[in-house]
């Protein structure tokens, strides 16, 4: 399908440089013989192109709303996970420029942990959630800043190139996804430090609650949520996001396409 190819065109060849290990249905571990292009073709490590973001899943994001969370238009705090979709036109790779639209003075960088699904994930429990994951990657969930979360226009989150993804890291390389530090730098200056220990729903809990109503497929990405306040970025600045053990994701923000 053309849309799978367009994922490759968006820069996921970085995946192909990895040597991969996966679990077969029989439970055996297999590793690719060499760091070959196989990663793009062989499930579960081919990204499907579906990327879901999670709103208000970092303690600081909830706290930043203060009393507003119980007032109109929201009236009450969210009960179920609040998700949104970063469609395929938003996907980008490290090194790609993020275009700052002419009607925005600045953008928000949304450094967060993304989990990559490895096996069909439906009605998971906290206990078996991690078994269904292939691994992790860094997500920069870029937004045009907006103060109201009631029914924001998708213009604010779904613009071309608004979701750079880092290189893939297999699950086994990360001891505890709920004990990672996410550091965001603009032009080399540390502007945000966030801990996955502060997630409202842990990785396992979120996967369980999301897959109660929607199945995630191999290659889908679920971003765990951005901390507040998200760093603001102007055109000309470079954002680098680091997560322990997952490498870095670096993108220049620009007024003009590269």
């Amino acid at each position, binding site marked *: *399908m*053309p*849309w799978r190819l*367009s994922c490759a065109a968006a820069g996921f060849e970085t995946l192909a440089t990895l040597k991969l290990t996966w679990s077969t249905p029989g439970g055996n571990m297999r590793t690719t013989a060499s760091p070959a292009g196989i990663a793009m073709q062989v499930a579960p490590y081919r990204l*499907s*192109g*579906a990327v*879901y973001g999670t*709103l*208000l899943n970092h303690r600081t994001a909830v706290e930043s709303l203060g009393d507003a969370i119980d007032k109109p*238009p*929201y*009236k*009450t705090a*969210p*009960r*179920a*996970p*609040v*998700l*949104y*979709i970063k*469609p*395929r*036109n*938003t996907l980008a790779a490290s090194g790609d420029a993020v275009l700052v*639209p002419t009607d925005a003075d600045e953008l928000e960088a949304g450094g967060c942990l993304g989990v990559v699904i490895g096996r069909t994930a*439906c009605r998971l429990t906290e206990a078996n959630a991690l078994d269904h994951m292939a691994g992790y990657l860094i997500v920069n969930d870029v937004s045009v800043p907006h103060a109201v*979360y*009631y*029914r*924001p*226009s*998708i*213009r604010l989150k*779904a*613009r*071309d190139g608004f979701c750079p993804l880092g290189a893939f890291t297999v699950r086994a390389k990360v001891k505890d996804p709920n004990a990672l530090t996410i550091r965001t730098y603009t032009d080399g200056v540390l502007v945000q430090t966030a801990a996955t220990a502060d997630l409202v729903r842990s990785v396992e809990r979120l996967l369980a609650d999301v897959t109660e*109503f*929607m*199945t*995630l*497929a191999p290659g*889908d990405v679920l971003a765990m949520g951005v901390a507040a306040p998200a760093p603001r970025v102007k055109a000309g600045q470079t954002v680098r996001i680091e997560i322990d053990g997952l490498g870095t994701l670096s993108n220049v923000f620009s007024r003009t396409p590269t």
Partner: protein
Amino acid sequence: MMRARVACRGAIHEAIPHGKHALRLADGRVVAEDSVVWLPPVEAGTLIALGLNYADHARELAFSSQEEPLVFLKGPGSLIGHRGETRRPRDVTFMHYECELAVVIGREASNVARTQAMQHVAGYCIANDYAIRDYLENWYRPNLRAKNRDGATVLGPWFVDAEDVPSSNALELRTYVNGKLTQQGNTRDLIFDIPCLIEYLSSFMTLSAGDVILTGTPEGVVNVMPGDEVVCEIDGLGRLVNTIVADDVFGR
């Protein structure tokens, strides 16, 4: 031309109508239309959906007029084909269908003017975009738990080429629940019509071949219960059948 994607005889096939109750597979075999599994007729890319895009439905839900289309996105996991089943959880009090004209993009579209927009349309399908009102929350509306459930976006039965649907701006839509007409509208009443939607969307996101735009639903949404047969019909596009099932089917 009308095309379906069906699973039968151990493979997935493209099929075209053959008489009234049969399909002709690409390899020449003719099969009964109720002997196959109907899949969504296109392998959809980005699924884009419109809220409140008919004036009457917006009024029905007490919304005032809008400056910008109310757009939300859906994931690929929500899609099912013709004659599929959609689950109604037992704790729900209001679950409703939404019969919609689905527009399939055929050619990349970026910053396309409305006068050129229809050149980017490959064809059309019928969509039934279910919603569960009980799960609607006031955060990033409509939240995915209300609108993006497994099996809650029914697409099909056919993909119909754009050239065979010259008047996509004047198609009757009808929904029948257990044979009774419950919803009726016409695409001429879209607040934001197809060219306008393509112009708007392509101004900030590149649309690619396979992307699907569900253009919204007219008034007449009613609660549906397990066992109900919901049929969405659009002139020239066929009849899209779906059955509501209860939790027990899923072992819940």
